[in-house]
């Protein structure tokens, strides 16, 4: 009877130790696995809404570091909304709004604070922005209203409301 009790005790210890070893192996396999959790919505875009459909052809450009032009919006027709990227680290983004029917080019200067954003070592780095100032010429644009200053991954509501001058 005594031996039986001892054997039972040993059996419990053996089973528990085996359990610990099994769990250690399982945990090791978990350590070996890794998951990448980068957000699906990972583009930082500013959203422009127009007060009404622009019955004109709109092209928006900016100057690159080397002085060449980059086209941000290429000959958009009857636009009522569009999304544009923002530069990572420039303090002021200078955009050129060129229309065809009313052949003018407006310069829009967007002052901003650039906030480094980090997700994980597995995901690319980017910058969020806080818009701090807004200036523009008024050849074809009547006015621009700043609706939301923070520019981040959320681009389902407008940052700017643009009023163009009458095209007639």
């Amino acid at each position, binding site marked *: 009877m005594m031996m039986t009790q001892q054997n039972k005790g040993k059996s419990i210890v053996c089973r528990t130790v085996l359990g610990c070893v099994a769990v250690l192996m399982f945990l090791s396999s978990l350590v070996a696995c890794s998951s990448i959790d980068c957000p699906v919505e990972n583009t930082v875009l500013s959203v422009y809404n127009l007060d009404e459909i622009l019955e004109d052809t709109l092209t928006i450009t900016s100057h690159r570091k080397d002085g060449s032009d980059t086209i941000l919006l290429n000959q958009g027709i009857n636009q009522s909304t569009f999304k544009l990227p923002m*530069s990572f680290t420039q303090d002021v983004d200078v955009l050129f709004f060129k229309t065809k029917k009313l052949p003018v080019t407006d310069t829009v200067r967007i002052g901003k604070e650039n906030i480094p954003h980090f997700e994980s*070592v597995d995901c690319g*780095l980017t910058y969020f922005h806080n818009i701090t100032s807004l200036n523009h010429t008024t050849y074809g644009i009547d006015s621009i209203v700043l609706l939301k200053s923070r520019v981040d991954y959320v681009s389902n509501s407008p940052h700017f409301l643009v009023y163009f001058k009458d095209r007639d």
Partner: protein
Amino acid sequence: MSQTVHISSFISRIAISFLLLLLSCVETRAQLRLGYERDSIPLFRGFAVSFDMAGFAEKMLGSHGQIEGALRLNLHDQYFPIVELGYGIANHANDAVTSITYKTRAPYFRVGADVNIMNKKHTGNRVFLGIRYGFTHYKVDISHPLLKDPVWKYEEPYNISGEPCTMQWGEVLFGLDAKIVGPIHLGWSGRYRFRLSHKDGIMEKTWYVPGYGKQDSSALGYSFYISFDI
């Protein structure tokens, strides 16, 4: 997508298999019970100190991990107030894909208690349920040698240095502790973690948090420790 389903199904099967194995390892005839066992054993049964081998192995094998020890009070082999102190380190240098370097090192602590839910409390083997409160204040360095603006083509280094962050979190855990020989125990715990509050600096998110682990979609943590009764 199909591959993802296969992998997750494979992992689920392994996890379920191990859980079943664990259940079989817990002495089937030993019923689990939550409640104070009234007997002649005194309330104070001593202390135990432990060292977490999982966090240490993680640090030795990878770019982050922690060195952690704990002091556990034994009350009647049933209630175990515990303080866990550790030092978390991450030194992930120049990621092979993203070229990001992430560094942090800071101390942390957790306080809480475990309850032995085994029916026979005084065998030396224990099945635990427990809770923890954890806190750490840490500073993060994140850098990239040259981050290129994809549109304007400006190239500038990305450098965040010594950004202060804090986190408070809670853990609910389940664990087993086996008496090996003399005062030596081996044990493990699986932990469900949840953040209570966090301040992640200007970049609004951090990766490895000392004591908490990686901030990703997984809420699970673990420990595997050796302890000594004193």
